[in-house]
């Protein structure tokens, strides 16, 4: 489990414009110094927002990565729901999903 490393990469990406440019140009290189499992690495590279959510990435970090990837808010919420449906419940952290897959708590 390297959730800390995964979260730290996304934290750095969210706040570092140079790292954003590097990630866009050469994502594998940008990830090189972070000790990630293959599942985590692929979740970032895809990007698989649903899997990142299930892995336990804090939503306060994840929502900015989603925005960086050009994912609109309703789609961000849907990808997390789909992630839970596909990969099972959130495995770590404090951002577990309580509502059902078909629920739209805020109407989106």
């Amino acid at each position, binding site marked *: 489990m390297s959730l800390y490393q995964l979260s730290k990469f996304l934290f750095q990406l969210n*706040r570092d414009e140079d790292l954003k440019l590097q990630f866009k140009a050469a994502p594998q290189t940008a990830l090189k110094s972070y000790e990630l499992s293959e599942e985590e690495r692929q979740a970032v590279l895809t990007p698989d927002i649903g899997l990142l959510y299930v892995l336990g990435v*804090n939503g306060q970090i994840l929502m900015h990565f989603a925005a960086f990837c050009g994912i609109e808010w309703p789609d961000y919420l849907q990808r997390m729901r789909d992630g839970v449906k596909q990969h099972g419940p959130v495995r770590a952290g404090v951002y577990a999903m309580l509502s059902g897959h078909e629920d739209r708590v805020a109407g989106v």
Partner: protein
Amino acid sequence: MSLVFSGVCSHAPGITGRSERADPALREPFFAAFGEMRDALQASQPDALIVVAAEHFANFFMNNMPAYALGMCDSYDGPIEDPAWLGIAPRKVRGNAGLSRRLITEVQKTVDVAYAEEWRFDHGIMVPLHFLDPANELTVIPANINCQGPPLTPLHRAWAFGEALRRAADAVPERIAVVGTGGISHWPATPDSGMINQAWDRDFLDRWARQDKPAMLSYTDEEIYRDAGQGGFEIRTFVAAAAAARGRGTVHFYAPIPIFAVGCTLATMEIA
């Protein structure tokens, strides 16, 4: 001089970033109440505004997470988020490193607060400033309570932090305002975003407005997580503002606005 203003407000990024998606019948009264709070804050003629925030991994991370932090800069940039995503244009906010240093020195007598000479404001501060200081005229000193990455500081320590801020405000010649920002119950940035426990919120606000310290501090984090979500941990900022003010509170606005992900709240507290 002394503390001249204390209040609390919501700071959810959807308030500005997704404002067009909200029902105008809810949104407009909320924004109008924010305007009234701005007028009250300005009428108190503060020399500096301490924003007690609950930042969201913008500056602080679990490699070295301070329970409490105060900014010590002459200026701060924000928002750290994509301005288009947040709906707030970039601005440079005036700080006052010298005043920060004097406040920090006083706070440190009872609370081991971290200080930061670098700090970029996230939505937790930018959304309140967008409404409370639209002309970008105030001198701002950011304060932070870790409400995001457990283990979290206990509620009674958040109270002690508020008390320390009050003592520090009273010890400097400047007029100091304090605004705590955070959600009450909410489940932000999850598929449950928009879930709001209105009964829990109203009960907490009642405890807060009555200045009922034992009731405010009686929650365990397990209870907060169960009933108010991970966003509920941010009541620490409300607790600190109450400890600083010492008086009775008035809730000027409360309404759940699901697309904003929070029960939108504006309240002030008498300085006693």
